[in-house]
């Protein structure tokens, strides 16, 4: 009830005012909902005067009013009610709160039963009008629903009177009995009853949804219960029911015109069914969306929303579900976030269910969400994009059928498409007859199936893609701007946001995955952007924390390479800068801080897979990687060595590094001496060096590393002609994974069956670690005198203890004798009595 109304109403509450006439706007309701504390004024109301008023009105007539009071009071005292439900007071006169002398309100405690009671009286009084009554009850909490319900009821009554009469009668009987019994029930039993009722309704609905569709309303009412457990159960049962009864199509409500037309009974019935379903569904969703804000129920609400999104993405009101799910996608609550991400992923991966529209909507919503939050979100929210699938075949199959419209295709596929068009045109002439039949069949099929037009799908896909890329670019841009994010990091506390740019890592992942779909127009900018990001941190700069982490910078390099490679090197961009970055990043890498997989991936994409034209650069990398493996763990070392081997195989001239050749320096060209600390691989003069690292790596504790080093060092003698012969299959990524600590520990330890003894040793005599003399000294520390004294002490002590024991026994004995005297006296008395 609106605040204003209440302030004025109580003193002159007109009993004849029907509830229907009280105008309650949605805003008012919301206001009360948001500002619970304001409702506190209820408790300060002059209840006595209200009482007077109500009594003057004659309370037995106006149970509605009473119910209204109850409803109001229930709100501020939701929590208290739970406890108070235990003590039941039955007297209906005491139903209203009574103010005690000290100003406290005493609530009547039989809330639930009381309202049931009221319903009961009403029902008996008004008979069939019980529906009307229900509406009245509802209106108080959900007035916006009331109107619709009423409208529907009017039609419904006409239509369903005949069938449902029996039903209603039964239900009425049922609820009457229920209400009576309820009065004596404790809260627990009430809970149980409600649960049973929930189950009954649910079963009814599942058994025969057409006939029992009205029961949805009751279920919805149960969800208004003040017991949160009941609400949860109600929500879950509604979810189950809706998942089951929602049809496989979208419901379109009949227009006014259609309503006016006379239709058959079956159609009318169907319409009623559909409209009821839709209305209840909407009400349910509204309820979920409002409940989602309550911390105690939000998990259940979100779970329901996600399941609905997963199960019925084609149905009405998808937009609102999506909106609320996307809103929760970067929730700080892990479970909620996981649920939402899962739901979105399922939307992306099961496009058959909704024909791709939902995908587009979701991606757009996420894009907006990211924009709104200025990229300060949980990385999970962007990771869902990785589940997007873009079907490149759409364009191809499309070109067969509609060769005339290649222009509408997505920009990035236009070239490919038009080529195929020409080829296919000629073939067609030969089998025109066949073709025609096939077309007819496929047209029929298309008409029948729900699959949207290919054109539409294509459109949708390109829209989706552009929305996704928009998000990605936004994130990149955001990361480029150093001032923007730092200030906000503290405000947005993210559970696992890495560094200041939580979304950057997953954004780069996404870019890497979809790099083949990036429009050529953007590519230049993108690379420029990546270059900046990769080279962003200059360690001479004092404020290091401000910048991207090593992993992120490595990822930038990887993405740049992937973008380039996937587009067939169409753009002539010099990637030299990225090589320089990688060369220096190798020094920045810290095994436990940075992600080793990223490093291995960078080695793989940039050095292992690509072609090295520049010998100077290749040599520099070979040298650096070899040096790198001297300082780092076996997994990193292995990844580096695999790369080194590969580079050596592909660049035969670099194999000079393996030989300690006095003339090696001549190849080095300008730089005659190797400079290990150079920052540019091209001027390091690595060709002048020798890979002495290998001789130390052969002694590496890990057998795979040492054998790899041995095999590399023997490559020098390989015939230069046999360059391509020995390509090792394992990529750096694979090598890294194989030797990671987790893997190493899981390797079954080889049982050392028999130990080969390298040298004989006189077992019995030798000490391995200890200095025997030093220890033996301690043996000689025993002093006879002390010993004798100690023995004597020992004797005395023991003697003392023995004596003590003896004395104590004697004492106990004496004491017990004395205590026996009591017994003795008692016995004597007894004898005397006898």
């Amino acid at each position, binding site marked *: 009830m609106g605040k204003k109304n209440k302030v004025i109403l109580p003193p002159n509450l007109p009993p004849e005012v029907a509830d229907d006439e009280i105008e309650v706007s949605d805003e008012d309701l919301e206001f009360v909902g948001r500002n619970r504390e304001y409702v506190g004024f209820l408790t300060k109301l002059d209840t006595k005067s209200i009482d007077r008023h109500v009594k003057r009105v004659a309370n037995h007539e106006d149970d509605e009013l009473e119910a209204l009071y109850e409803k109001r009071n229930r709100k501020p005292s939701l929590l208290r009610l739970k406890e108070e439900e235990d003590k039941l007071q039955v007297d209906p006169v005491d139903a209203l709160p009574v103010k005690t002398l000290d100003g406290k309100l005493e609530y009547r405690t039989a809330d639930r039963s009381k309202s049931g009671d009221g319903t009961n009286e009403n029902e008996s009084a008004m008979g069939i009008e019980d529906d009307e009554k229900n509406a009245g009850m509802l209106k108080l909490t959900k007035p916006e629903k009331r109107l619709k319900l009423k409208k529907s009821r009017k039609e419904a009554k006409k239509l369903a009177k005949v069938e449902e009469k029996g039903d209603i009668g039964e239900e009425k009987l049922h609820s009457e009995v229920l209400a009576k019994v309820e009065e004596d029930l404790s809260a627990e039993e009430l809970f149980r009853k409600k649960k049973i009722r929930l189950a009954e309704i649910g079963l009814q609905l599942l058994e025969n949804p057409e006939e029992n569709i009205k029961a949805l309303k009751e279920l919805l009412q149960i969800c208004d219960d003040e017991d949160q457990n009941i609400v949860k159960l109600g929500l879950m049962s509604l979810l189950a029911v809706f998942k089951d009864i929602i049809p496989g199509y979208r419901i379109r409500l009949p227009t006014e015109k259609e309503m006016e037309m006379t239709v058959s009974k079956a159609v009318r019935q169907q319409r009623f069914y559909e409209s009821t379903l839709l209305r209840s569904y909407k009400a349910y969703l509204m309820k979920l969306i409002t409940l989602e804000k309550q911390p105690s129920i939000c998990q259940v609400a979100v779970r329901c929303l996600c399941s609905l999104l997963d199960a019925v993405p084609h149905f009405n009101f998808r937009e609102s579900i999506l909106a609320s799910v996307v809103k929760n996608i970067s929730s700080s609550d892990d479970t909620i976030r996981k649920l939402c991400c899962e739901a979105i992923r399922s939307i992306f991966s099961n496009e058959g269910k909704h024909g791709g529209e939902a995908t587009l909507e979701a991606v757009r919503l996420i894009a907006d969400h990211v924009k709104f939050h200025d990229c300060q979100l949980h990385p999970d929210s962007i990771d869902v994009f990785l589940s997007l699938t873009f079907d490149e075949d759409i364009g191809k199959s499309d070109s067969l059928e509609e060769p005339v419209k290649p222009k509408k295709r997505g920009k990035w596929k236009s070239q490919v498409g038009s080529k195929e068009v020409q080829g296919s045109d000629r073939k067609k002439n030969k089998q025109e007859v066949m073709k025609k039949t096939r077309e007819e069949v496929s047209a029929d099929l298309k008409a029948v199936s729900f699959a949207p037009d290919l054109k539409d799908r294509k459109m949708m896909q390109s829209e989706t893609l552009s929305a996704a890329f928009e998000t990605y670019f936004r994130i990149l841009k955001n990361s480029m701007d150093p001032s923007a994010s730092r200030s906000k990091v503290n405000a947005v506390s993210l559970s696992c946001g890495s560094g200041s740019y939580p979304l950057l890592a997953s954004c780069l992942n996404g870019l890497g995955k979809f790099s083949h779909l990036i429009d050529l127009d953007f590519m230049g900018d993108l690379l420029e952007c990546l270059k900046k990001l990769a080279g962003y941190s200059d360690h001479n700069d004092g404020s290091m924390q401000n910048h991207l982490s090593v992993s992120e910078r490595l990822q930038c390099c990887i993405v740049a390479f992937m973008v380039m490679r996937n587009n067939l090197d169409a753009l002539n961009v010099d990637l030299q800068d990225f090589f320089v970055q990688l060369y220096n990043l190798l020094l920045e890498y810290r095994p436990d801080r940075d992600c080793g997989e990223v490093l291995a991936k960078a080695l793989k994409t940039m050095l292992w897979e690509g072609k090295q034209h520049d010998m100077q650069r290749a040599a520099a990398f070979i040298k650096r990687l070899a040096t790198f493996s001297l300082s780092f763990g076996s997994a990193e070392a292995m990844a580096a060595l695999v790369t080194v081997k590969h580079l050596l195989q592909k660049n035969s001239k670099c194999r000079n590094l393996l030989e300690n050749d006095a003339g090696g320096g001549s190849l080095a060209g300008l730089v005659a001496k190797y400079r290990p600390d150079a920052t540019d691989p091209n001027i390091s003069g690595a060709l002048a060096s020798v890979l002495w690292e290998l001789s130390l790596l052969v002694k590496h504790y890990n057998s795979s590393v040492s054998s790899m080093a041995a095999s590399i060092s023997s490559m020098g003698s390989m015939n230069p002609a046999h360059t391509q012969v020995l390509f090792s299959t394992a990529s750096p990524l694979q090598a890294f994974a194989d030797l990671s600590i987790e893997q190493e520990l899981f390797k079954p330890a080889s049982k*050392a069956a028999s130990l080969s003894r390298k040298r004989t040793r006189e077992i019995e005599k030798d000490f391995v670690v200890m200095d025997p003399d030093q220890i033996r000294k301690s043996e000689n520390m025993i002093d006879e005198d002390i010993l004798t004294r100690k023995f004597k002490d020992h004797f005395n002590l023991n003697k003392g203890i023995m004596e003590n024991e003896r004395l104590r026994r004697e004492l106990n004995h004496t004491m017990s004798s004395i205590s026996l005297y009591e017994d003795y006296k008692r016995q004597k008395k007894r004898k005397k009595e006898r």
Partner: protein
Amino acid sequence: MAKKLGKKARKFAKKNLPSVMKRQRKLNSMFKKKSAPRRSKVSNKVFLEESNKSKNVQQTHGDLEGMILDEAFYNNDLGDLFHQDDYDLDEDVSVSDGYISEDPECPYISEIEDEICSEEKSDDVPILLQNREIYQEIAKQKRKLDKLCVKDPQFSKFLESQRSDLHKSKSEEIYSDEEGDANSADDDGIGESETSLSGKVLTSSTLDVWCWMVMEQPNCSTLSSLLYGFRAACHFGVDSDEVSQQKIANREVFSKLLTFVLQEAHGIFSRLLGISGSMNKKNMLKTTKKSEWKSVRPLIKSYLRSSLFLLNQEMDNQILMFVISQLRLSIMFFAAFPSLAKRLIKRSIHLWATGDENLSACSFFIIRDIASKCSSDYLDICLMRTYQAFIANCKFMDSANLKHIKFLMHSIVEIYSLDIQKSSQKVLISVQQLASILRQALKTKKKEELKKIHSWQYVNCISVWVEFVSCNFKNYDLQPLLVLIIEIIRGIAHLFSGPRYLPLRFKCVKILNRLSLSSGVFIPIASLLFDCLEHRGNINADRTQRTHVDLSSLLKVPKQLLKSRDFHEESILTAIQLLSEHFSQWSYHISFPELATIPLILLKRFHENTTLESVRRTVKRLMDQAQQKSDFIQRKRDEVLFSPKDQSSVDGFLELEKDRSSPFGRFYASMRHDGLQSPRT
């Protein structure tokens, strides 16, 4: 005093505190059932003994298998390893086999009994004071009782009748209690057939005569009397209720008896058996076949049993050391009595693990002797139980017990090094168990799993095996063990990154350096130390508030120290020290310049950025030295003609130079010196 009281006091409390007694009785009810038939029938006893023996054998076997197969391995709890065999020795205690019978016709029992001294007043032991108090109390109560009796003469009659009832029940109680004690302690055979000497008091002059006679002519009958007295002395104060016990006149007699028997027994037995010089397994086997063995065997057994009993009862370090060192002479005799030997092992391992420095050393010697000289079964037991005791005793570490734990570690390595073939299997199993704990932690990352690893217990266990491997790597092929241990240590370092765990990290690096040095394999450690160069403490912290940070006794840095300048300094200095240790190991390797490249680049950067003056100097020194060395190697290797693949030439590179002192060697020596002075890691 509290320590001295020890077991005695506990026993004492048992007798006097009813609640304890009740509990005790409950516990003992099990024993009672078992021992009831044994008391009555000797044949039964033998049977029991046999069955017990076989059970033990089975158990040990089962344990070994269990260790390998079942839960101990998967359970991932350090304490669980070798856990099951605890019962083993406990049960042994109740096994009694064989006994010597006291010769009733033993002559030369001095009849002078006036020596029984009155209470020595000089000692003002609290227990005596208490005794006096109780005595007074008794007197008071007695008077009260007397009064009652006088008042009501009929009461005394009633009392009499009640008393007899009471006595009956009480004696039962005591009987059951005592029986439990006797069982769990020592149910010696001597006392049973013996009556003649009961109640007799052993006086100083008798003892002197006996000693003289035994030394002059090792007559069996005198010896057995002496041993009987020895037994009584060992049991003195424990089974004092037994009437059969021989009384010992005073403390001089007591002391002399014990000292004499313990000192001379081995010599006497050797003479009796005709053994000369040291004994070994073969010798012993021969001895047991001699005809004399049969007659001497019960005597030896009695002696060993009594001394063991003394060892179990005694709490004083000096006495324990004396007993142990004397028993060590007769170690070969123990081999003939398996159950006694096991008890000896159990007790001495306990003393080894918990005793003070000297006692611990003595106990270690006897353990090592049993393990090396007696049959290999004992070696197995020793291997298991020492490690087990070590696990139980290394949970905490501070500056106080650092030395002790180090000693324990070394002793374990010694014992495990006795028979590498045998022990390396066991070591592998333990290391695998440690690995599986780590695996679990890596998989789940749960707090309690991590805690298991981040404990002194785990670190110490790893350290023991590291020590073992590095001591024996030269002589045996322990490659798989070495690799597994290195992986575990790397895993630990990987699992606990971050500045708070730097002490643990340093420990890992130190261990890796040790392994690398002893095995000659290359273990890259540089990357493990780079982290701490980037850790930034609060440089501007108040200088006046200096706290000494001792990283060696920490695993995890307390939060308040984390930002402190001292911790920052200390950690960098430690890192420098470890790095220079690593460098010095490979300082003559041809690839040293490359090894130093990346660390030098990073150190240089650190040197430019840091504001810590003291650290700066050390860093600079290391950089200069390493650079010098690097240049030197580079010059030298420019002269050689071989290539990296020529491994033998590489190994021979600068072989001659290694022995000479070089600037870097001196630098490292000074670093180590510094390190020793202020204990780091």
